[in-house]
C-alpha cells in the first residue's frame, strides 16, 4: 500500500496523478477462505481489517452484493458518540470512540472524524431527569459528560431558538462526540484490509449457506460457492433474510430511516444537536450542508426510500429549533433500511449454526460503532468465543430477558 500524505500528493501531482494505485484490488473469489465476511458495509470491512491486522487471519474475503458502503454505511448521518446510559452500551461505544480517535492515522485514510461536540437537548422535566441520569451514568463510566445550562447552549449554538414551544431547559454535552465522513470509513477500511491481503469482492450476492450437521461449510454466491469454516454475517437490514437462509430467525424488524441535507451554506452550526422532544437532529457537514434526520418510518419495509409524512414531521421541528432554516432548501432526501431489535441494542452473537456469527441490529445508530464492532467481532470470530465487550449482545438475551434496553430509559411515560 503506497502511503497517502501531503508529500505523496505533491509527488503524484508531478506525474499528473497517473501513478496512484488502486485503493483496493478487485479479485475473483477463491474457492476457499479461512473466514468469509458477508456484507461490505463499514462493520463488515472493519471486521475483515481487524481479523487481518490483529488476529493474524489474512485469508479473508468480504462479499458484497453491490458496491462497498452502499448500505447504511453510505446513507447515514454520521453521528458518533458514546454517551449511552447502560454499562454494556457504554462499553462497546466508548471502545469504538477510542478507536475513532486514531483511525485516520491507523488506516492512513482521512476519515474526517471531527470531535466537535454533541448536545442532547432537554425540553421538559422528564428530559432533565433523563439527561440527569444518563449524564451521571456516563461520567461514572469514565466517559466525558457535561451538563449545560440554556445560556451555555445558546452560547455554543447562537442560531438555536431556546425559547420556543418547548424551551431548552438544559443539555447534555459530549465534547468527544461528533461526526465522520461515512464513505471514507468504508473506503479506508477496504484499502487497509486489502493491503493486508483481504479479498474484497463486490457485485457478488450471497444466496445461501452450505451447512452440514449444524456446522457451516461455506456460502453460495452469485459468483460460485466459496468454502469457509467461519462465516460472519454483517448485512444490517438484510440480516433477517440471511438468517432465514441459515434456517433460523433473527429477532429484527427492518424499517426505513430517512435523512436529508440542505444546500451547502457557510458554517453556521458547529455542533451536533439532538432533540427528542422537538424530534429532530442536525449537524453541518464540512461541505456546508445541514444534515437532518429524525425517527424511522412507521412501516416495515425493504425499500430504501421513505414516505413524505416523516419528512414533513422533521420540517416543523427543524424550523422551530432553528428558525433561520425556514428559507434554506432541502437538496436531497434518502432512506436506508435499519435493522431494529426490541431493545434497540445490536446483536453480536454466535448462532445455532456452528461457525456462523452474526453482527447486526445496529438499527439507527451503528455507524458510530463501526470500528468498535468490527474490532470485537473480529476477535470473537478469531477466538471462537465472544469478546467480553461483545458478550452481553448475544441473541440469548431475547430468551433470558437480559435486554440492554437503551430505548426504554428515554421513551417512557411521564
Amino acid at each position, binding site marked *: 500500500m503506497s502511503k497517502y500524505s501531503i508529500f505523496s500528493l505533491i509527488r503524484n501531482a508531478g506525474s499528473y496523478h497517473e501513478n496512484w494505485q488502486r485503493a483496493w484490488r478487485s479479485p475473483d473469489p477463491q474457492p476457499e477462505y479461512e473466514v468469509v465476511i458477508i456484507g461490505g458495509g463499514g462493520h463488515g470491512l472493519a471486521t475483515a481489517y481487524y481479523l487481518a491486522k490483529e488476529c493474524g487471519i489474512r485469508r479473508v474475503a468480504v462479499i458484497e452484493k453491490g*458496491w462497498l458502503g452502499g448500505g447504511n454505511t453510505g446513507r447515514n448521518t454520521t453521528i458518533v458518540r458514546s454517551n449511552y446510559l447502560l454499562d454494556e452500551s457504554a462499553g462497546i461505544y466508548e471502545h469504538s470512540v477510542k478507536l475513532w480517535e486514531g483511525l485516520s492515522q491507523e488506516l492512513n485514510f*482521512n476519515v474526517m472524524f471531527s470531535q466537535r461536540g454533541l448536545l442532547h437537548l432537554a425540553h421538559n422535566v422528564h428530559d432533565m*431527569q433523563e439527561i440527569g441520569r444518563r449524564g451521571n451514568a456516563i461520567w461514572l463510566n469514565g466517559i466525558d459528560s457535561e451538563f449545560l445550562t440554556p445560556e451555555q447552549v445558546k452560547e455554543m449554538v447562537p442560531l438555536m431558538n431556546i425559547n420556543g414551544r418547548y424551551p431548552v431547559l438544559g443539555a447534555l454535552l459530549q465534547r468527544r462526540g461528533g461526526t465522520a465522513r461515512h464513505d471514507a470509513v468504508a473506503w479506508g477500511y477496504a484499502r487497509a484490509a486489502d493491503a493486508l491481503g483481504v479479498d474484497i469482492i463486490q457485485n457478488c450476492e450471497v444466496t445461501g449457506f452450505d451447512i452440514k450437521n449444524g456446522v457451516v461449510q461455506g456460502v453460495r454466491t452469485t459468483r460460485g460457492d466459496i468454502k469457509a469454516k467461519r462465516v460472519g454475517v454483517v448485512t444490517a437490514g438484510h440480516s433477517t433474510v440471511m438468517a432465514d437462509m441459515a434456517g433460523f430467525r433473527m429477532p429484527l424488524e427492518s424499517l426505513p430511516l430517512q435523512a436529508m441535507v440542505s444546500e451547502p451554506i457557510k458554517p453556521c452550526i458547529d455542533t451536533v444537536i439532538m432533540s427528542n422532544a422537538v424530534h429532530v437532529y442536525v449537524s453541518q457537514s464540512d461541505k456546508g450542508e445541514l444534515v437532518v434526520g429524525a425517527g424511522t418510518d412507521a412501516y416495515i419495509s425493504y425499500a430504501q426510500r421513505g414516505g413524505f409524512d416523516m419528512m414533513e414531521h422533521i*420540517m416543523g421541528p427543524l424550523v422551530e429549533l432553528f428558525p433561520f432554516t425556514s428559507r434554506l432548501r432541502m437538496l436531497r432526501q434518502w432512506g436506508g433500511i435499519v435493522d431494529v431489535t426490541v431493545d434497540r441494542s445490536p446483536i453480536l452473537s454466535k448462532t445455532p449454526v456452528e461457525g456462523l456469527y452474526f453482527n447486526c441490529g445496529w438499527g439507527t445508530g451503528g455507524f458510530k460503532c463501526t470500528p468498535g464492532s468490527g474490532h470485537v467481532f473480529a476477535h470473537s470470530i478469531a477466538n471462537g468465543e465472544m469478546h467480553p465487550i461483545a458478550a452481553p449482545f448475544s441473541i440469548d438475551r431475547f430468551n433470558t430477558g437480559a435486554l440492554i*434496553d437503551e430505548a426504554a430509559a428515554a421513551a417512557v411515560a411521564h
Partner: protein
Amino acid sequence: MAQKNRLPDGGRIDRTKPVRFQFNGKRYDGFSGDTLAAALLANGVSLVGRSFKYHRPRGIMTAGSEEPNALVQLGTGARTEPNIRATQAELFDGLSADSQNCWPSVGFDIGAINSVMSKYLPAGFYYKTFMWPASLWMTYEHVIRNAAGLGKGPTESDPDRYAQHHTACDVLIVGGGPSGLAAALAAGRSGARTILVDEQSEFGGWLLTDDTEIDGMAPTDWVANTVKELAGLDNVTLLPRTTVSAYFDHNFLTAAQRVTDHLGPQENTKTPRQRFWKIRAKQVVLAQGSLERPIVFADNDRPGVMLAGALRTYINRYGVLPGREIVVFTNNDSAYRTAIDAKNAGAVVHLVDLRPDPDNPVVHQARQAGIQIHEGSAVVGIKGAKSIHGVEIAPLSEDGKSLAGPTFVVSASLVAMSSGWNPSVHLFSQSRGKLRFDDALTTFVPDHTPQKTRSAGACNGTFTLAGCLAEGMEAGAAAAKDAGFDSAIAGPSHVVKEDAPGSMRQVWTVPTVHPLGKGTRKHFLDHQNDVTAADVHLAAREGYLSVEHLKRYTTTGMGTDQGKTSNVNALAIMSEIRSASIPEVGTTTFRPPYTPTTYGAMAGQGVQELFEQYRGTAMHDWHVNNGAVFEDVGDWKRARYYPKPGEDMDEAVRRECKQARETVGIMDASTLGKIDIQGPDAAKLLNMVYTNAWSALKPGRARYGLMLNEHGMVFDDGVTTCIGENHYHMTTTTGGAARVLNWLEEWLQTEWPDMEVYCTSVTEEWAVATLSGPKAREVMEAVAPKMALDPQTFPFMAMQEGEVAGLPARVFRISFTGDLSYEINVPARYGMALWEALMEAGRPHGIVPYGTETMHVLRAEKGFIIVGQDSDGTVTPYDLDMDWIVSKKKDDFLGKRSLTRTDTARPGRKQLVGLLTEDPNFVLPEGAHLVKEVKPKPPMDTIGHVTSSYFSPNAGRSIALALVKDGLNLKGSSFQVPLMSGHVETVTITDTIFFDKEGERARG
C-alpha cells in the same frame, strides 16, 4: 451602457415595464418578464459567481433550473436566500443580488488560490492528507469548513408565511410545454379533474423559444389559445411557477408553488410566500421535456460558455443577444437553429460541428445564412479567464481522440454548446420507474414503472414537435380514460412542418492540445463542484468504478443542481475508461427533490404558534390568571405550581404541600388519559392487559392496575372503574394516553379480533378536579348536598354519579396523594364552572390549588410510583415490590410469560427502594448514582440511581426513591452518592413510604 446586449425588439419581456435591480452593489435596468440571468446578460454581465472548490470565475450556463454556475445570494437581512439560480429568479423592482463564495469580490477572489493549486487538489485529495499531526485535524477542518459552503444562510427568523395545500385529482400533468399542454387539452376536455403544473412563470416550455409553426400559427399563439381554453375549463387547475419536487408511492406527489417570490418581499405576509402542494393523482402524465447536455471540452467552464438551447432562449424569449461574436459548438442539428437565430439577431457566428459531414436541411439553411461551418472539428480551448476573448478550434481525428490538424483561433465572446439532449427522467425514476438506454439518442429514456404514470414528449425521448403534441394528446386522453372518463379522446392531430432530427456524433471528452489532465486546461463535467474529466480517470484508476463510488469520490452530481447537466457525461466517460456500455456502468438513483425545496414551505403552517399547538385543560385560563407556572407534559401545558408574590418554586411547593395535607388542596387532573371501554368482552380485555384480576369488579368500584409490555416490563398504570355492565372507564398516565390506546387497539385488531369490545379516547371529554386533604369531604358536602359521602356508602375506591355544583358529575374516591381524595369528573365544557365552585366552597376551609410539583412530592411521600420516572421500561412489578398486583391465578395476561424468563426472574435485579440522605436538608439530584465505593475519579461501579427526589415538608426532610441492585435486601445499608460537583452524599436505603405508613388517611 444600459442593456447593451438587449435586442431592439422581440422577446416576451414587457418593455413598457422597466425594472431596476442591483447586482454586487451596482445598479442595472431590466424589464418585467426577465429572469435575473437574462437581465444580467442584457447588461453585459457575464461573470456571476465562483465555483465551489477552485473558485473559478463562472457565468451563466443555462436558462433554467438545471443551472450549475450562476448561483447568487438574493436579498439581505432576514429575507436573504443563498444559492438562488439567477436563471430562475424573476426580476422585480428593487431586487438585489450578490455573488457568493468569493472574497473580497467576484472579480478578485482570494479563494482562487485554490485554482492555482489545483494540481495538488484532485478529486478526493482530502482523503489523502490533513492526517498529520493528528491533533491538527480540527484546525485543518476549520479552514476547510470556512472555504466550503456556498452562500450564507440568514441569521434571523423568516418574516414570511407558508401554506400547505392538500388536493386530489384525476390527472396530474407535470410540465406545460407542447406535450403537457396537449395532454391537458385531452384530459381537460374529457371532464377529468386535471392539474397542469409548470416550474416556469408561463406555460409553453420550449415553444417560448422555438419558432416552428403549429397549425399555421406562431407557437406562442398556439400556447396562448391553448392556455385560454384550459383556463376556461372549471375542471382544470393551472399552476405555473410550481415545481413538482417529489414522486412517492401510490401516485402521491408534492409540489412547491412560488406565490410571491416573483413580486419580491411583501408587506402583507398574509399571502404565503410559497405554497406546498400535496397531490394524490389517479393518473400522472410526466411531460417535463429534456435538458441539454454540455460538451466536455477544454476550458468549457469559462464565463460565456453556455448551452445552445439556452442562448436561443435568451435571444428569442428575452430579446437578449449576450455576445456579438459567437461560436456554436455542437454534435447535432438542434444547435443550428441557435446559430441561425443568433445570426439573424446580428451576431457573427461560427459553427463548429463534431460531425464530419452534417447534411440536413437545417445545415443548408445555416450555410445560406452565411454562417461558417467547421465540420469534423472541435473547440479545443478558450482564450480568456473571466471572459472569453477567442476560441481555439481544431479538426478532430476520425476516432475523436486526437487533433487532426493545427489549431486556429476565432474571435468570439460567447460559446454555445450542445451534445444532445437528456430526457428529464428524474420524476419517472423517483416513481420507481426503470430506465432504458437508447443508443440512438445516447441517453436514458423511461422504460416501465409500477405506478399509474405515463411519460410523453421529450422526457420520453421524443424530440419532434409533432411527436410531442401527438404523444401528449394520447397520454392525456389515456390517463383520463383510465381515471374513469370513458369519453376521453386524443383530439385532432396538429399540423407541424419540421425536419426529422439528424444523426449525432458523440465525443464524450473532446481532446485538446495536451493530453487530458496534463496541462492547465480543464475539462469540466460538474461545473458547480469542479469535477473534471481527469477526475473521473483518477477515480477509475483508484478503483472507484461503480457509479456511486464515482459520484461520492469525485462529488460529481452532488451539487445543488444534483448533476442535471453532468450525470450522463460522467457515466459516459467512465464507460469509455472501462470499455463498458453506459448501462453496464449503471445509472444513478434520482433522489427527491427535483430542485431544492424551501424548508419553510414543507413545514407549511405548522410553525411558531402552530408548531405542536399546546393542549390546555378547560381550567387553563384560571391557572394563567392565578399566576401558575406551567410545565410541558407531552403536548399538554400543566400548572406546575402557583407562586405567591415573592415565592420561588421551592417555597411555593412547600406551602402547597403542607396546606394540602393540613386542610384541602385542589388540582387540575384533566390531562390524565381516559379511555371508555365497552362491550361484552370488556372485562376479558382488562384481564389480558392488566396484571391483576378484573372479573369481580362491581359497577361503581375502581381498581388500580399495572400494564406490562411483552417483556414483562411495566409500561403504564392507572385506575380503571366499572361504570356499569360491560362498561369501564380506564385512566392512564398523561403522557401514555395515546400509547395505551394504540396498545389496546393493536392487540384487539391483530391478536384478538374475536373480542367484542370498543375503546374510545375520552381524555378531552372530561374535565377533572381533584380535591385532596382532611377537609375534602367538607368541601364536597358543600357542593354536592345530594350525594351520599359517608365512608360506608361511598368508600375508598368507589365511584358515584350525581350532581356536583349543579353539574352532572362522576366522582371517584381514589387518591394519588394518600389523603382523602375525590376526583370529580364533569363534561369538559363545565370544567371551569366546577373549578370555580370548588374554590368558592373550599375558601372557608383554606383550600389551596396545587400543581404537578406538589403532586409529585405528595405521592413520593407515600411511595407511589410515577411510571416513566421511577420505572423505565426495564422494571417488572416485582422490581417495584408490587408482587401483590400480579395475579397468580390468571391463565394469561400480557407480559406473564416473560416474567418467568431467567433474567427477568433473577434475584438481585434493580429494585425500587427509598433513600434517606445523611444530611436531611440535602436534596439529591435526580439521576445521581449510588456506587459501591467512591474512587478519586471515575470509572466507579454503580449499583443504582435516584429516580425521584424532593424536600418533603410533611416528613420535614429530604426524601428520595431509587432503583438499586438487590435493593429490597439492602434496607438499612448505607451507600455513597458521588456528584460531578465533587460532593459525596451518604444515603441509607429504606422502604418507600415516608408519611402515614399505615395508610389511614386515604380511607378516612
